[in-house]
């Protein structure tokens, strides 16, 4: 009986301890030749989801190749930037971590992130191997604080069934803004029954979609380095007029909430809208949630000022404290691996993300998946999709401007200067 109790205790204890151990990537048994073992804490904004599993797998790949370095994965599933900032404040930040663009102007500017230039040069890693528009996001004053791990941009996702039913040709990669608007009108199917209305497109009240038209009409948005507002001009007013005309003039567009959805990916999956401007992240979502939908992806329309694809990206970077701890070289090695060709090919081949290395343009997956290659090929016209420390306030000011015009509270000519004024007061006046 006593023995049974003891056995039970062992089992219970093991049950408690083993799941804790499972939080970490399992270190590969080190080769006995290691002079010293190095441990690296790694964090990313991923948890118990597909991305978390992918990171764990990539860390295991790294440890197999580098048996003297052990990594411990500590995912931060929500409010990543806020959490990581408190960790920096308490000196408890991870050694290697996801670096978002705003972090370059917070932690990077304050010298809290490791400048990778020296280590990249030593390891023979060329920064020119990365898509320049993406790399630039993580560079400040000549320092490189992160290497882009993957990226996304917008494309026109179209529902083939709706196009076929209307006998309309699928959109090409060279749609003009006028053609896109006409297409949305042709695809719009009104009905007295609200649940049967099919909208041509959706133009949500957020800057994530609107920014492509700001760039497309020739406006800039915000300089993340100087905080100079770039959208208070006539081109931005034209962009806002164009963006809101789908809903106000043509009635060919609406917002997801109007049709009872949280985001336009759901509206698209349910067949309530024929075209949406979304990123590569929509593809796996559609495959998992709406497997029956037949869809294609074209590049976003070309504006009067040319093609402008906002790029959204994150990087792997490291804490500057790794220098003191003597682990900076190992941290850099891990970053180079996680953003290098082996890992990026793996991520591309499983359809997880677009690679940041143009050399992977000829990857078999991209060749056989035109929806992914169309998005990938936009990298040559990539524009800044984030605005450093001014990211959230810029997006909010422009999102509010769209809402004001949609609600008829202001015209585009009034809303754009008002948004610029609001933003300016937030940038300059705060003590």
């Amino acid at each position, binding site marked *: 009986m006593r023995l049974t109790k003891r056995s039970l205790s062992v089992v219970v204890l093991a049950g408690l301890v083993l799941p804790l151990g499972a939080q970490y990537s399992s270190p590969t048994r080190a080769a006995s030749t290691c002079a010293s073992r190095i441990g690296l804490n790694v964090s990313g904004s991923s948890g118990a989801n597909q991305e978390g599993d992918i990171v764990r797998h990539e860390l295991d790949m790294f440890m197999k190749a580098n048996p003297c370095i052990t990594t411990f994965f500590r995912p931060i599933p929500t409010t990543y930037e806020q959490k990581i900032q*408190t960790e920096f404040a308490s000196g408890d930040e991870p050694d290697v971590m996801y670096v978002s663009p705003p972090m370059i102007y917070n932690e990077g500017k304050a010298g809290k992130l490791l400048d990778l230039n020296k280590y990249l040069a030593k390891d023979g890693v060329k920064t020119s191997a990365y898509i320049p528009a993406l790399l630039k996001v993580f560079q400040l004053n000549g320092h490189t604080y992160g290497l882009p791990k993957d990226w996304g941009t917008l494309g026109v996702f179209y529902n083939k069934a709706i196009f076929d039913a209307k006998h309309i040709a699928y959109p090409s990669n060279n749609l003009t803004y006028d053609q896109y608007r006409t297409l949305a009108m042709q695809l719009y199917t009104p009905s007295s029954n609200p649940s049967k209305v099919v909208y041509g497109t959706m133009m949500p009240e957020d800057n994530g979609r609107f920014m492509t038209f700001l760039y497309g009409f020739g406006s800039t948005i915000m300089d993340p380095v100087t905080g100079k507002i770039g959208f208070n001009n006539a081109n931005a007013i034209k962009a806002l007029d164009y963006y809101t005309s789908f809903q106000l003039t043509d009635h060919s567009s609406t917002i997801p909430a109007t049709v009872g959805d949280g985001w336009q990916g759901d509206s698209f999956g349910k067949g309530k809208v024929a075209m949406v401007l979304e990123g590569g992240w929509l593809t796996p979502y559609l495959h998992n949630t709406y497997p029956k939908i037949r869809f294609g992806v074209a590049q976003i329309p070309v504006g009067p000022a040319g093609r402008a694809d906002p790029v959204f990206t994150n990087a792997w970077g490291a804490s500057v404290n790794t220098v003191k701890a003597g682990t900076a070289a190992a941290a850099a090695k891990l970053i180079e691996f996680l953003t290098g060709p082996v890992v990026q090919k793996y991520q591309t081949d499983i359809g997880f993300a677009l690679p940041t290395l143009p050399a992977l343009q000829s990857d078999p997956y991209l060749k056989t998946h035109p929806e992914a290659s169309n998005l990938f090929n936009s990298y040559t016209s990539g524009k800044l999709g984030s605005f450093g420390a001014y990211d959230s306030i810029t997006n909010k000011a422009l999102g509010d401007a769209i809402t004001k015009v949609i609600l008829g509270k202001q015209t585009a000519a009034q809303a754009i200067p008002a948004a610029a004024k609001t933003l300016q007061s937030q940038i300059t006046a705060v003590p």
Partner: protein
Amino acid sequence: MDATMQTKQAPVPTFTHRRSLKRALRRNITAYLFLLPFLFLMCTFILGAAVFGLALSLYHVNYGIDTPRFIGLDNFRYLWDQFQNNRDNFEFGIGLKNIVVYAFFVIIGQTVLALSYALLLNQPLKGRSLLRTAIYLPSVTSSVAISLIFVYLYNNGGAINAFLSIFHIHGPDWLNNPNTALPAIMIMNVYTTAPTFMILFLAALQGLPVSLYEAAKVDGASGFDLFRYITLPLLRPTMFLIVAVGTIGAFQTFDQIAVMTQGGPLNATVTPVYSIYDTAFKQYHYGLGASMAAVLFAIILVVTLIQRRFIDTNIQY
């Protein structure tokens, strides 16, 4: 002589006196020892945090990034300047304006509804226990869960608009229309908070002296008279408590906003606490956020004092 007399009159601590003093001291020490865990937690996480927050409001702080810099009252000057010159776009100012409207309607709504519930459940009804449970249920449900449920109810194609469409009423897009978003959240808040206050009213109703009612009935008072001239006045202390707690709760509204609207559309549902969160944790202006919190504290304090003055709680019966 006087001195001698005074010396004589001075109490001489006897053995018994000393023993009772010792006992009292021991009793007090025991009491404080029992209170110690609570006092420690209160001093650390409430008083300490409040004092720290107040000190923070005098600094420019961006944790983990810059070294905190003392800037005196600059954060408060900024708030005042924005309130005067940028009122239409100043989120915290808009939040204060919203919360006054919100508090006014929510407090009236929840007090009236709580009293109605309490009066109903104070009657000897059949299935009263079941009814009490049903009414009280929203209060014990997590506010995040309730908020998510209401997001679906308020959805353009949700249950509320579906119900309205039966009567050929085209319901609004509740949470995406600046005119209806705040009222929609108010209704939800009244629905979820009223049952908690109902308990207080119910307890107070059951403690009212029966003799007063009997005397009034003998004098020919009607049911409404009993309610108007006996129940309501005697419930004043409870009402003050409910109004005060309700006001503080309304001024601190955050979770419903964070879950349902994030302050939108067009700042129509932004509240002071949401604005503080936005300033401190999204824009990283911790000092400014702390100064907003200090202003909010002052406002709540003044409002509570005013309420105390107008609702006389000194009832003797």
